[in-house]
């Protein structure tokens, strides 16, 4: 291997080099701005993370997700292959390119364009001609990337083959960036093929190069094919310059996002820096479109997570507010997102911004005489039952729970029988963080005064909030968990029935709290539990979530009907759920008998 030219520079390297300098400068400034925008304790977290062993875990995750796209493989192999071919393939080209320079021309390592246009500046000597190890590896990797490109083009026409019904439309900025990206590799391939007779190549470039040679001998007129190097360099330069203004910003932000997330930083205030990185980490891959029922059932495409992040990126706050306040926060998008963008948290901030303009001190009365009837007295019972306001709207559930608790022989108190205040989560979901805190404080005081050991609630919304956001001196259980415990310990017994039951996982209990098994165990003891395609993490949203204040009831209804349709394909006798909101939503459709699992248990108590 030797240098082909005395000169280590050619004007065609300029577009690439300018692009590279631009993007590195951008990255440096953006990094400083993001870190500066972090609250001080988050900065400390980041620093601690970087200088701890945990950084290796982040490194591994970056490798697995940013380069190998592990989560996309899980969704669909073809889609996974396509993304990996681009990311990992390109990464290999860069690494191998630098290795080549390191080995054969170490004095040129200071020239950033040298590894990229290696086969222009360097040539093989006779001794290594035809099949040098690196040339072979480079050709193989290039072929790998090109295969990914082929799939990407194919995907534009037949996205169903990639397991996607819907994908994103490309705007002008993305079109330029995609076009540049798609040109980079074919142009490199052409340039290296034309030059294979001059600088050497391997099976791919030399093979195709010899075909070109058959038509015309370029070795004598190198000047004719020089423009291909220009085109290759320009494609790279354009791509780099478009990086911050297109969907490909995620290439830069995702590694940082992973590090920050692993450092324990969360988006708690708008524009905290972390949120910015999160928004820019959305690659607009479109994987979240199909799971979103607002898109697939209610035709509200603008509310999809992917479009919400776009509104934020483009500072379209009106549209972002609209998307946030029609979102049901079922988190099916977050579940599907290969990057792990948690739009629910971002949406809360968007709402918070809007709501706090209008609300002040709503719950002042809690500490005045009007709140006096909420006094809770200390008592000797171990179990307190909090039905929750939504459960008071589905009284069959609370009566069933009273019956079960009485049958168990456990001493309990129904603490919100006469009334209560909201747990605060619906208020928080509406964006009123301050009001939610007031309610939380009052409830915490009331609950802790009872000195009970266990708090049982029938509402998954309350459950999630009590469990995660409250500081209670007792364990918190959803009634499905408590009933399962009573059954396991033999405190209550049920008669098994032949009823065919399908269980719908409420979003707040399942996906958002991770309780999947207990309800199923309870139902198995009392009926024939059937599985559906929407069990567990795949669970649908019932449409009645309290989060979507601006979602019209007609849209909700369409979603409920669609969900019931999908859940009852095997004609179950009962559609069981464990959430008052889901129960109301499904009962409305009038298609199947809908019951809370507590009702089924109460009906069949021995």
């Amino acid at each position: 291997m030797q240098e082909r030219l005395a000169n280590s520079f050619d004007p065609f390297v300029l577009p690439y080099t300018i692009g590279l300098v631009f993007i590195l400068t951008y990255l440096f400034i953006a990094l400083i701005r993001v870190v500066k925008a972090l609250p001080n304790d988050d900065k400390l977290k980041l620093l601690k993370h970087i200088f701890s062993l945990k950084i290796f875990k982040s490194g591994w995750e970056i490798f697995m997700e940013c380069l190998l796209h592990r989560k996309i493989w899980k969704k669909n192999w073809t889609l996974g292959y396509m993304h990996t071919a681009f990311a990992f393939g390109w990464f290999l080209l860069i690494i191998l390119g630098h290795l080549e320079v390191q080995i054969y021309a170490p004095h040129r390592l200071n020239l950033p364009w040298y590894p990229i246009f290696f086969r222009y500046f360097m040539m093989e000597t006779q001794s290594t001609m035809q099949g040098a190890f690196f040339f072979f590896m480079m050709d193989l990797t290039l072929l790998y990337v090109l295969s990914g490109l082929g799939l990407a083009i194919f995907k534009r026409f037949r996205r169903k083959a990639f397991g996607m019904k819907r994908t994103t439309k490309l705007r002008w900025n993305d079109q330029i960036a995609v076009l540049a990206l798609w040109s980079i590799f074919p142009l490199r391939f052409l340039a290296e093929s034309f030059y294979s007779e001059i600088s050497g190549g391997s099976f791919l470039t030399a093979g195709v190069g010899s075909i070109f040679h058959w038509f015309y001998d370029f070795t004598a007129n190198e000047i004719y094919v020089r423009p291909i190097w220009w085109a290759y360099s320009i494609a790279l330069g354009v791509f780099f310059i478009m990086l911050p203004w297109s969907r490909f910003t995620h290439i830069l932000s995702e590694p940082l996002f992973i590090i920050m997330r692993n450092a324990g930083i969360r988006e708690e205030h708008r524009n905290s820096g972390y949120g910015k990185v999160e928004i820019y980490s959305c690659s607009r891959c479109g994987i979240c479109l199909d799971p979103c029922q607002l898109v697939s059932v209610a035709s509200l495409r603008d509310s999809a997570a992917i479009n919400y992040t776009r509104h934020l990126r483009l500072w379209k706050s009106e549209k972002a507010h609209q998307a946030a306040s029609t979102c049901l926060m079922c988190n099916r998008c977050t579940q599907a997102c290969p990057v792990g963008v948690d739009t629910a948290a971002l949406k809360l901030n968007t709402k918070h911004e809007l709501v706090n303009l209008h609300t002040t001190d709503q719950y002042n009365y809690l500490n005045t005489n009007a709140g006096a009837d909420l006094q809770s007295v200390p008592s000797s019972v171990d179990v307190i039952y909090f039905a929750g306001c939504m459960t008071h709207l589905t009284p069959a559930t609370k009566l069933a729970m009273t019956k079960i608790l009485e049958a168990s022989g456990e001493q309990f108190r129904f603490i919100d029988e006469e009334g209560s205040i909201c747990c605060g989560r619906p208020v928080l979901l509406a964006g009123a963080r301050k009001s939610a805190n007031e309610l939380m404080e009052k409830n915490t005081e009331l609950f802790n005064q009872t000195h009970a050991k266990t708090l049982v609630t029938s509402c998954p919304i309350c459950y999630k909030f009590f469990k995660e956001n409250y500081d209670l001196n007792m364990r918190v259980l959803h009634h499905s968990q408590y009933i399962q415990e009573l059954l396991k310990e033999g405190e209550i017994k049920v008669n098994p029935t032949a009823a065919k039951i399908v269980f719908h996982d409420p979003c707040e209990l399942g996906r958002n709290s991770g309780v999947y098994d207990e309800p199923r165990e309870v139902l198995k003891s009392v009926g024939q539990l059937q599985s559906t395609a929407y069990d567990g993490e795949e669970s649908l949203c019932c449409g009645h979530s309290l989060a979507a204040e601006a979602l019209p009831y007609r849209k909700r209804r369409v979603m409920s009907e669609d969900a019931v349709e999908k859940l009852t394909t095997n004609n179950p006798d009962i559609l069981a759920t464990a959430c008052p909101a889901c129960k109301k939503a499904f009962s409305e459709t009038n298609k199947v008998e809908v019951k809370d699992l507590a009702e089924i248990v109460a009906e069949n108590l021995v």
Partner: protein
Amino acid sequence: MKSIAIIGAGIAGLSAASDLSKKGHKVYLIEKNVEIGGHVAQWDRLFPSQKEAKIVVDELVKNLNNRAEVLANSEVQHCEKKDNKFELILTGNKNLLVDTILVTTGFDTFRAQRKEEYGYGIYENVITSADLEQLFKKHNVVCKTGNPPKRVAFVHCVGSRDEKVGNRHCSKVCCVTAVKQACEIKELYPDCEVYNLYMDLRMFDRHFEDMYHEAQSKYHVNFIRGRLSEAGENKDHQVVLKTEDTLAGKPLKLTVDLLVLMIGMEACHSQKSLNAKLGVRSDTDGFLSTKDIFTQNNFSNTDGVFFAGTCTGPKTIPETFADARAAASLVNAYLMS
């Protein structure tokens, strides 16, 4: 002799059947239930005159004078238009070939279980306005325990004007029915306290306002503006209501012995399966869509298919009769042309 099939033997169907048969046409009156007379036959007394519903239905039957062929307990399974005639297949494989069809399928009452928060079917002392009429008919207006109620509350707009159950429309008759029933309760039990929980009172027709006035001045019925938020049950099986008096701006808790839900009108559910067969369609509120809301209110979009009564939206009894007579004269004109 021209023939006509009338689907639904409620008051609209009966009225039109007698008008058309008097004109000398062959009338088939198809009724899915065993009894004819529709919802009115289930009622005790009617606003605004307190006339007995039974008398109204009896008058209609008497007018009909056995001139029409009543096909009770049968439903339309299939319908096809063949050369300006309609071929109908009824349950029991009975075939009819008629020149025209008049749809008088009426309405369904709202299924009160759908508002689970009001406790119908869960708490024993929660009944619907239709249930109360049955109790009036049996002269047995008592709580589940058999004791006369000391305090009764009526909830207006149950299943009407309620976005959450998918019904935006007003059912028109429930406000005044609640006033009528409240006065009837007071007539039976002068010491009973009676409350009406309303959104707003729509006393739009003749004598309604007088009834409302009398309810307050003569019977001392209490009217509270506020929707019921939820109902609970105490140890004595009384119903505990949580609402807000929106005129006073205060939350309110009310314990009653009997809660009456003023269920509204919904488009007839069994009608929906007929739509495609008849070539007619439902509007966004579920009721049938007429050719023109002003000038062609009894016409469907299919030539030869006419509408009368509450199948095209909630109506009072006088309105239903007017509509049925109009439809009958239009059908007659169609048959004679």
